[in-house]
Structure formats: structure tokens, C-alpha cells
């Protein structure tokens, strides 16, 4: 069963590497990280800038990539489903096959410049945190893209529209909306509410973890600041990372259920 999964994943890897644009995606992060380190001051500042870019773009690229795969490979997936293999194995094989190259492109693209500028040795914990968060976000958003592709299987325009709206909401509008709520209901004790709300957004969670690592609450939005005050650094990181794990587990699990029950 596992060899079968690997067989499916390997096929996607080969196909993606040939497509070359995953390599291009990695190169963008390579150039970005390198120039941030060259021109942007010291290691922590560069890492912080990198994580800001990452928090914005990885979710978008991941989701578009996941949904595009479902739409482009429709007939092929249907052909594979008529073969004597378990749908679950096929789902995991495809998911791992398409999400890991994207993840690796980001990790390698950012890791190499961090290595040759010597940051990896100096700020190793912070570097590992940023790279790890980017990797997890990639997996989360590819799985969301997969899920949206399956949910809007016959209506691509709706699927893409929904994806863009979800991205705008999570990556851009969310923190502003929370801030607005806090301003409106400023007289009430809102700390717990804000924490609960930030748990519901994986991008926010990742942002909070970056913030806790670099201790720069002022730069990282309102929810982050509250989070820091409430949990402190250690517990906050644990709480945020366990929530991120849930964010990875739940969409992939729902995706598996949808895939398993779907009429193709």
C-alpha cells in the first residue's frame, strides 16, 4: 500500500519537475532571500521580511496550485480511479505528490541563501521557524485548494473565485476586521475572543508564531499582540503550533472524505 502511494507521488514529482515552474517558484524565493540578506540589514530583519512575503504569497500560490491540479487532471484522476486501487491511497499519493515539491521549492529556495550568508548558523532557531512555517502553510493551503477543487468540481469560475475570496479574507482582511471589532466593542473584555478568533486563521497563527519568535508584536498585527500578552512566548508557540497542526489535519481529512464519497 505504501509503495503504491509512493509510486503515485513519484509520478507527480517527475511531471512537476518537468513543468519547471515549481523550479521557478523556488528561484523566486532564492532571489528574494538573497537580496533581502544582501541589502536588508542583518539576519533577523531579513527573516522577518521573508516571513511577511511568505505569509502573503504561500497561501495564494498553494491554493491556486491545489485547485488547478484538480481541474487540469480531471480526466487523468478519473482514469486512475478506474484502476484497481484504493481511493484513499490515490488521494494521499496525489496530495503528497503535488504538495511536497512546492514545499521543497520554498524551503530550498530560502534555505540556500540563508546558508551561504551564514544566517543559518547564527539565527538557527528563527530560520528553522520561518522555513518550517512556510512548509506547513504550503501543505495547509494546497490541501484547501484540493478541497475547493473537489467541492466546485464542475464550476471552475466559482472555484477560483471562492479561492481568491478566501485568500483575501484570511491574508488581508482578517486582521483589519478583528481590529474593527475590537474598536467597536472596546469597552468589553475581548482578550479571549481575539485569541479564539486568531486561532481560526492559519495565516494569523503563523504570523503570531513569527512574532513570538522575534518578539516584535508591534509589527505583526493586533491579534499577535494580544496573543503574546495572554500566553507569553513559550506557551503561545505551543498553542499556535498545535492549532496549525489541526489546520493541517482537518482540511486534508475533509478532502479525503469528499474524495472518497465523490461521484466523478
Amino acid at each position: 500500500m505504501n509503495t503504491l502511494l509512493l509510486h503515485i507521488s513519484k509520478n507527480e514529482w517527475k511531471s512537476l519537475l518537468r513543468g519547471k515552474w515549481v523550479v521557478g517558484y523556488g528561484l523566486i524565493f532564492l532571489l528574494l532571500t538573497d537580496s533581502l540578506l544582501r541589502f536588508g540589514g542583518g539576519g533577523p530583519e531579513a527573516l522577518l521580511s521573508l516571513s511577511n512575503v511568505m505569509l502573503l504569497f504561500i497561501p495564494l500560490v498553494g491554493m491556486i496550485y491545489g485547485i488547478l491540479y484538480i481541474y487540469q487532471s480531471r480526466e487523468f484522476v478519473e482514469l486512475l480511479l478506474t484502476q484497481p486501487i484504493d481511493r484513499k491511497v490515490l488521494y494521499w499519493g496525489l496530495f503528497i505528490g503535488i504538495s511536497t515539491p512546492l514545499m521543497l521549492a520554498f524551503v530550498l529556495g530560502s534555505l540556500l541563501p540563508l546558508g551561504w550568508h551564514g544566517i543559518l548558523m547564527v539565527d538557527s532557531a528563527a530560520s528553522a521557524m520561518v522555513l518550517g512555517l512556510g512548509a506547513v502553510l504550503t501543505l495547509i493551503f494546497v490541501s484547501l485548494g484540493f478541497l475547493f477543487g473537489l467541492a466546485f468540481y464542475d464550476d471552475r469560475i466559482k472555484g477560483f473565485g471562492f479561492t481568491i475570496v478566501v485568500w483575501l479574507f484570511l491574508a488581508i482582511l482578517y486582521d483589519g476586521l478583528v481590529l474593527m471589532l475590537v474598536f467597536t466593542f472596546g469597552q468589553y473584555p475581548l482578550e479571549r475572543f481575539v485569541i479564539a478568533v486568531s486561532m481560526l486563521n492559519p495565516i494569523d497563527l503563523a504570523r503570531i508564531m513569527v512574532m513570538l519568535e522575534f518578539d516584535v508584536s508591534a509589527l505583526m498585527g493586533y491579534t499577535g499582540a494580544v496573543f503574546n500578552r495572554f500566553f507569553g512566548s513559550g506557551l503561545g508557540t505551543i498553542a499556535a503550533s498545535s492549532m496549525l497542526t489541526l489546520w493541517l489535519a482537518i482540511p486534508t481529512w475533509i478532502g479525503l472524505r469528499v474524495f472518497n464519497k465523490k461521484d466523478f
Partner: protein
Amino acid sequence: MIEINDLKKSFGNLEVLKGMNLAIPKGQATGIVGPNGAGKTTLIKTILGLVKPDSGTIRVNDITLNGNWQYRRDIGYMPQVARYPENMKVFELLEFIKGLRKQEALFEDELIEQFNLGPELEKFLRTLSGGNRQKVGATLAMMFNPGLLFFDEPTAGLDPKASQKFKQRVKNEKENGKTVIITSHIMSELEQLVDYVIFILDGNIRYYGSMKNLLTESNEERLEGAIASMMDVA
């Protein structure tokens, strides 16, 4: 063999299969005909496990379908639209499916020769013509020597020569005792390939019997006329 009992399937408000009963014995060559949207493809997809029925049972080779997959070891399916990953070469696709099925590809070389796919093997699938892609689909369906063969509009994109070769191949499979199921809108083709006809209309089976019977009953000489007159009655 295939046994279907009171099979129902709706997509939203649309009832596509309205309680179908069907038994196709081993070794029979059957054509499925009916107007567009009658439920032909849905029926085949349900047997293949692509579509999950709302109610009713399907048994393939005495295995009741319940989301299991092992029964598909004995099934070969050639889809109506053959689209494959663009960045894959033909031989890579064949290797990939072989690795998935883990069955001996008994007829691989024979089919490649018959369909003249040898010069195409090193090409990327995106550069293949529609007809050649269909041939790849036919090769994938038949190369593992399955007992049950499904062809969905098989000759739609094939040139006359390839179409002739395909038909010859299907006839051979039939003679070797395979169960063959074909959907097609080309009645003359079905006349050559199948002995039994299933006529589906609005999610129900309107006629299921031998081709000869159908022609005698409807006083027609050709299948086309017989089917057309059944559509008129309906």
C-alpha cells in the same frame, strides 16, 4: 459477469438512473445505446465505482460493490475523452499504470504493434493527436488481459484504419471469452461488434435482448432503424 439490482442514482433533482435491473453474463458482448443524457455513461461509471449509487446493488464477478476496489483488477476501461498529464511520455504512462496495477501486461507489445504506437512511445502525451491518445487508452484498457472490458464511444476519434484494427481486436477479445460492453452512437459499429443491445431511455432500460430479436421484433433490417423507431415510440 455483472448483476445490477434496482440501481438508483440522482444528481441533485435530476434522476439519472431510475431503478435499473440488469444481468450481463460472462462472455457476452453488449452494446449500450440511448439518446444523450439517458444515463449510459452514469451506468458504466457506477459499475466502475466512479459514481456511488443512491440505492440498489451491483455485483461484479460475484463481488458486491461497496467502495471496494479489488474487483477492478478484472476490468479494463477506455474512457470517452482521453486526456493525460501533459508532461508525461507515452511509455511512462504505460509504466505508471503497470506499477499501479501490479499485473502482468500480457498484451502490451501486441497492442502497441497493432495500433502502431511504437513511434509514439517516446513522445509527450500533449503532442499526441486525439486519435493516438484514444489508441493509448485502448492499449491501457486491454493490455492487462482483463475479463471485463468497457469502451465508452471508442472509435469516435479514430481514423478508419485504426478503427478497423480496434474492431478486429475487440472481436478477438470477444472470441476469447471476454465480457465486452460498448457504448456508441454509431449503430453500424455496434452491429459488427455486439450480440446484445441495451437501450436506455430516461434512466430506465427500455429494451435488453439480442440484436437479432430486436431486429425481428421491430421489423427493421438495421439497428439504426430499430433504435430510431424505439425512440419514436417513447
